[in-house]
């Protein structure tokens, strides 16, 4: 009996092994994939989604770039220019404010439906819809009226004498947009029904009339004391105002907003900008500007509500050189040729496979073992090894980004520009690059990395004498050890090494004590946004190749500023650049703005990024790109 059982187990094991050997689908080797023209890429993480209007990351952008196409695409041979995408041709008025895009006559969605200018109009409406909650809607704020519509500034559309009978002057003091100074954190722990009238009033005041739902507007109309009215508003005026707001409470303001997007003809799109933007074609390469298929999204419910269902395999319809074939969570995403693509004849790759490899060492091992055509990144510890063993495959290219340290200028110690400068001049960035980062980065002498015709700032250098001179002007000059700085950084090992290097430099050159605080990513970001730090490490990757992507963030009230610093002079310069007569003058004004910023030094630029990765010899047509958004349609694979 026992022998029988043993034999049965043996037989089962053997047969299952044979079954697996013969039937289980084996992964393709890299050579096979090259032959089949399937590009296999490491792609850092599982994407958050594939809706171009919902996601925000580089990981997602890598896949979306294969599936969708914007008005223009990157020109791999000359990154300063753009190639036609969905738009066959484009032109602007001499002021770069009114743009016309003629769409490709053959532009179609992957299901064969014609792609028209209305699709763009719908797409921009969707991403800007205030209730849609697109995280990256601000990328479209270049369009006239887009920001007001997205921020739900309803008073601009509702208070018009011709429609409402109300004159702006008479109601201009009403709290339409809400009061962010009212702390509602505690209030949110109480249900609206259980709140006292005082609490309700605080809630309403914090939201402002624009953001109150119909039910709350009605309760205010019944009890006017539930909202703070300015003294110059009489009861009949507030009644009238509430009546208008209640009538329009659930209405979309798109048609009244006058946002500058118009489908003039099926294949003709007009875009009006709020200020002259000569580089608009560059901006349209960003995925937030891509069209999404109205006819598909509408099948899955209200298109103005985020819904991932339309991006599932089998449902997703796209307009790029590839279409979605398979998406297995945390495993891989496969895209294949899209025969409906307007330029399908010139697309050489048959597909792209994305592997979400979070661990950079695993990714490198897979490349070394011929499982990948390209890695997404390369750990700094592996750069030397790759230089020696895989010199042809190692790529070190400029990447449009700046690494820097933020000062919390709200703290009394960092309100002193001399201390900020002393700390800045005592950092030897070149040594950090050579000994720690090892990725060929360059020392940052300004906040805007080198790009195009922009004059790169040369405001910073490693100069101990200058550092000491500035330090001598601070109140800590006599007793440097009385100053203890906290340096907030992330929990990555590389972040710790960098922080320790800075700690040592400041201790050696200035005698200052530095306490390093390593926090996990979200805690680090949370501490920064609450100004719970002294100095914090940070970085910024440009969204488009223009200095404004590195300068606008330092405006007062910008959520990405996080330094507490602001300057009217700096903002005036930026404003002036918006309306500059020529592109040259515009760049000149932006450069002046940057120099004003660097004079105050609320941040210390450390280095300009490079992108380090490994690329297989069989990949052809993969050109360096400072935005790391190589278009797949121009690539090929050959032995």
């Amino acid at each position: 009996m026992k022998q029988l059982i043993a034999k049965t187990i043996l037989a089962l094991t053997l047969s299952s092994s044979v079954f697996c050997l013969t039937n289980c689908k084996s992964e393709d080797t890299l050579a096979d994939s090259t032959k089949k023209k399937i590009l296999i890429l490491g792609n850092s993480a599982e994407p958050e989604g594939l809706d171009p209007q919902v996601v925000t990351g580089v990981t997602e952008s890598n896949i979306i770039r294969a599936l969708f196409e914007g008005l223009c695409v990157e020109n791999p041979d000359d990154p300063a220019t753009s190639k036609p995408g969905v738009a066959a041709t484009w032109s602007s008025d001499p002021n770069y404010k009114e743009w016309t895009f003629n769409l490709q006559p053959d532009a179609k969605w992957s299901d064969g439906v014609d792609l028209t200018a209305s699709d763009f109009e719908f797409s921009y409406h969707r991403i800007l819809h205030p209730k849609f909650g697109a995280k990256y809607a601000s990328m479209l704020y270049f369009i006239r009226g887009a920001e007001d519509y997205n921020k739900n500034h309803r008073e601009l559309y509702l208070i018009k004498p011709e429609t409402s009978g109300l004159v702006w002057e008479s109601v201009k003091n009403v709290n339409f947009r809400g009061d962010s100074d009212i702390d509602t954190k505690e209030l949110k722990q109480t249900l609206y029904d259980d709140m006292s009238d005082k609490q309700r009033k605080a809630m309403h005041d914090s939201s402002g009339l624009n953001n109150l739902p119909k039910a709350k507007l009605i309760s205010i109309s019944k009890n006017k004391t539930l909202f703070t009215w300015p003294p110059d508003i009489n009861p009949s005026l507030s009644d009238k105002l509430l009546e208008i707001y209640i009538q329009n409470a659930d209405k979309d303001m798109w048609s009244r907003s006058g946002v500058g997007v118009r489908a003039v003809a099926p294949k003709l799109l007009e875009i009006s900008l709020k200020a002259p933007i000569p580089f608009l074609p560059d901006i349209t390469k960003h995925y937030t500007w891509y069209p999404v298929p109205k006819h598909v999204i509408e099948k899955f419910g209200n298109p103005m509500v985020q819904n991932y269902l339309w991006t599932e395999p089998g449902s997703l319809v796209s307009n790029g050189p590839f279409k979605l074939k398979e998406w297995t969570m945390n495993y891989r995403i496969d895209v294949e040729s899209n025969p409906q693509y307007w330029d399908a004849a010139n697309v050489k790759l048959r597909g792209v496979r994305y592997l979400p490899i979070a661990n950079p060492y695993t990714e490198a091992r897979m490349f070394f073992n011929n499982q990948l055509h390209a890695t997404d990144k390369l750990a700094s510890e592996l750069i030397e090894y790759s230089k020696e063993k895989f010199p042809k495959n190692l790529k070190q290219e400029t990447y449009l980004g700046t690494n820097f340290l933020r000062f919390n200028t709200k703290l009394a110690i960092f309100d002193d520009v001399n201390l900020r400068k002393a700390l800045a001049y005592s950092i030897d960035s070149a040594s950090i690059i050579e000994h720690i980062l090892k990725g060929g980065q360059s020392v940052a002498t300004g906040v805007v990395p080198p790009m195009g015709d922009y004059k790169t700032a040369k405001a910073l250098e490693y100069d101990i004498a200058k550092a000491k001179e500035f330090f001598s002007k601070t109140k800590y000059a006599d007793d440097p050890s009385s100053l203890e700085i906290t340096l907030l950084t992330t929990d990555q090992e590389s972040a710790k090494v960098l922080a320790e290097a800075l700690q040592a430099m400041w201790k050696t050159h200035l005698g200052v004590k530095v306490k390093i605080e390593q926090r996990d990513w979200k805690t680090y970001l949370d501490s920064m946004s609450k100004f719970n730090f002294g100095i914090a490490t940070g970085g910024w990757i440009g969204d488009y190749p223009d200095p404004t992507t590195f300068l606008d963030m330092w405006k007062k009230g910008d959520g990405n500023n996080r330094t507490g610093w602001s300057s009217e002079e700096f903002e005036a310069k930026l404003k002036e650049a918006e309306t500059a007569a020529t592109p040259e003058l515009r760049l000149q004004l932006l450069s002046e703005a940057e120099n004003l910023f660097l004079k105050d030094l609320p941040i210390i630029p450390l280095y300009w990024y490079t992108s380090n990765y490994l690329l297989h010899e069989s990949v052809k047509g993969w050109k360096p790109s400072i935005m790391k958004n190589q278009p797949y349609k121009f690539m090929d694979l050959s032995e």
Partner: protein
Amino acid sequence: MLKIIINRLLQGIVVIACLFTITFFLVRKLPGDALTSEKELSAEAKKAYNEKYDFDKPVTTQYRIAIAKLFEGDLRESTKTGQPVSKIIAHSFPTSVVLGVTGMFVAICIGIPAGIISALKKNSYIDYSTMLIAMIGISVPTFVIGPLIAKFIGSNVPFLKVAGWGDPFDWVLPSITLGLGTGAYLARITRAGMLDVLSQDYIRTAQAKGVPQQMIITKHALKGGLIPSIAYIGPAFAMLITGSFIVETIFQAPGMGQHFVNATKNRDPFLLQGIVLLFGTLIVVVNIASDIALMFLNPRLRQEENA
């Protein structure tokens, strides 16, 4: 017996309820939330998101909603991807189970024979060297063993890959990495258990009666000697399934460990709760199963429990 099982099940339900509640409140106490990002989001985006996931409501209300949804069988969506938590679990749990089962298979294949041989050859070089290797196996973490195995075995054996999860050959290296530590621990437990039994009177009696050594081991010693190992295997199995995060990232296996760790890092409350609920249930069930198995193997335990 039935009374004991019911009692254990009730205890298990209380444990799971506590786990759910603690996770629910703790994750909301963490600094930052799912919307905390490097690029600051607009107030409108935050508002839309908070309304969607009820984060604009008081925490106690959110808890009530969570309990109500749970009883409806709705684990809600991942706040990061918008995908249903149940779908994410359904996609990744099978991989974790495969990793757990194959890892346990490796552990048993290595641990039990090594432990038995060590016990039989007590205080010999075989014993010392086996236990030394076991000690190394316990001490060296998977993030050291994994890459070494990938580099030296994965890149040199033709049908193996350094990472990836396409065919059953891809299970080999992760399961070895995952199973080694457990196997080493199992070897030590088996050795101790066997030594304990081998010194019992009834074994000596059997030896005195002239029963062949092989029969003494298979018929008498193993049954008692393996009880500690079996008590360990249950919870260890649950640990292998739930704790495979490092092995998953080293070998690019699409299991649940990554979701578990990332859900915490991303402050993704519903996904974290869903996974904690599943892992908690799994650990409770496996422990109960292990208790029951032990009661069957050891009559004394049954009597003690009944008393």
